[in-house]
């Protein structure tokens, strides 16, 4: 979580990072770090390309990287509706379908999970009435909810959104609960002695204090949300990256399958970065804290 460079608040002068001497192959600084990070993926791709012959390996099952790239280019930029290639030109719309579902489901998971978790962690009464039920349902994997979801919501968006929301909900609620439960007792006492009502304490002490844990939950939850969207699109919806993934496998288009997998990974990474960015903004006070320790 602290892999992004720490930036100081405008007002706070922070000493410049000490110059790091270059170690080994790579130059110092950001460029060197990027080069170091890219090394392994490049090696894998080169090895994969060299291992194949005539555009495929493993007895013709796996396409080489250049084939995957070609398939993706057609999928992304090819003309639509040409019959021969049903995927041509549909990449963006499928990415958007999946992303929209993740966004809707995940907003739902946050809207319920954050308040629920904070309330559970803060109030013994709420914890006693709600937490056991959550703990009882939590071991049921979201994949086991698929038939239920299809039966209730049918083959359409709502089914996928339900699964995503459910999958994202658990880590969000559990982490928010921990965050709200672990609040320093003296912070609460200080607020109370300053005249804060129970609601003030909840909103102005417990919630901000739980925020770091909440963000941890959001990141885990978002990962599960992507799993949920792919699973439900493979089974219960007729569009999106998950649908294309399964469909392409069925007709033997492994090049599209791999291009699809990489697309899912890229979207997952992108959405995670989005949360990390918000987190860095919301928890500025914490970065300064760790910088000064």
């Amino acid at each position, binding site marked *: 979580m602290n892999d992004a460079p720490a930036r100081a608040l405008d*007002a*706070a002068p922070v000493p410049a990072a000490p110059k790091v001497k270059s170690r080994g192959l790579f130059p110092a600084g950001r460029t060197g770090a990027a080069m170091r990070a890219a090394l392994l993926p490049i090696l894998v791709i080169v090895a994969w390309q060299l291992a194949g012959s005539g555009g495929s390996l493993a007895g013709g099952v796996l396409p080489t990287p250049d084939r995957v790239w070609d398939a993706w280019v057609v999928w992304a930029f090819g003309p639509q509706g040409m019959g021969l290639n049903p995927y041509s030109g549909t990449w963006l719309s499928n990415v958007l379908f999946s992303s929209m579902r993740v966004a809707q489901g995940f907003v739902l998971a946050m809207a319920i999970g954050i308040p629920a978790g904070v309330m559970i962690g803060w109030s013994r009464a709420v914890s006693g009435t709600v937490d056991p039920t959550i703990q009882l349902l939590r071991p049921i994997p979201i994949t086991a909810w698929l038939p239920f979801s299809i039966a209730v919501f049918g083959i359409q968006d709502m089914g996928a959104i339900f699964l995503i929301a459910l999958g994202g909900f658990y880590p969000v609620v559990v982490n928010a609960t921990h965050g709200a439960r672990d609040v320093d007792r*003296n912070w609460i*006492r200080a*607020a*109370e*002695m300053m005249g804060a009502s129970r609601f003030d304490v909840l909103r102005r002490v417990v919630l*901000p204090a739980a925020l770091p844990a909440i963000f941890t939950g959001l990141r885990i939850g978002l990962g599960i949300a992507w799993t949920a969207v792919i699973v439900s699109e493979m089974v219960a919806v007729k569009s999106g990256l998950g649908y294309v993934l399964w469909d392409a496998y069925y007709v033997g288009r492994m090049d599209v399958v791999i291009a699809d997998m990489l697309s899912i990974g890229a979207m997952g990474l992108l959405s995670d970065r989005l949360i990390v960015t918000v987190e860095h903004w919301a928890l500025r*006070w*914490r970065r300064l804290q760790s910088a000064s320790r």
Partner: protein
Amino acid sequence: MGTIRFREVVKTYPGKQPVIALDRVNLDIGEGEFVALLGPSGCGKSTLLNLIAGFEEMTSGALSFNGGTVDSPGPERAVVFQEAALLPWLTVEQNIAFGPSVQKRPRAEYEPKIRELLRLVGLERFAHSLPSQLSGGMRQRVGIARALVMDPKALLMDEPFGALDAQTRMSMQQLLLDVWQSLGTTVLFVTHDIDEAILLADRICIMSARPGRITREITVDLPRPRSVDQLTDPAFIRHKAAIMAEMREAQKEHA
């Protein structure tokens, strides 16, 4: 206005082996009086302070503040914590404004006051800093400003300077002396530093452990206003010798 009264107050922490933290404590603190609570670790000083602060409930006895019962924390009994207990996501200014703002006091009323307090504790330049950017002594000064901004009738301080180095501690003691001299609020000050107790207090209550009781009360009749320079005065040394004798005596009786 700021009187504190303990009558036969008992506090037991339940558990497999219940702890009698306070055993029939009697204590009267008058309006504007500065009382230090002195005793070894674990003798129940914090427990006593937490009861009058309203953080914990007594097991039996009678406890009153200004003649009324104490059932919850409130801004008329401001607490200064040992580790300041500032909210780390709020700036210095926001931490001080927390009380007035949850009490829905008008901003125009408390903002000038905060500026004045920041000047008083020497933190004008740090109004927009976060607690983590401050030293321990600076944080404690914010803790004091946060308490004073509410115009409390009593200040309850639990080893507020215990975690500070000797030099910072002395400048904080002077600050507190000056502030108290001009405001005249009732102060209950927990410490295990004899010098600190003598320097600050009108009266020192010595506590002993297991069970926690007040065993001696000693009046400090050093002239006011006081300053940390008096730490080496012959009168101060005489007081210290007397108090140490009393403490030894108390220890013998309760051994």
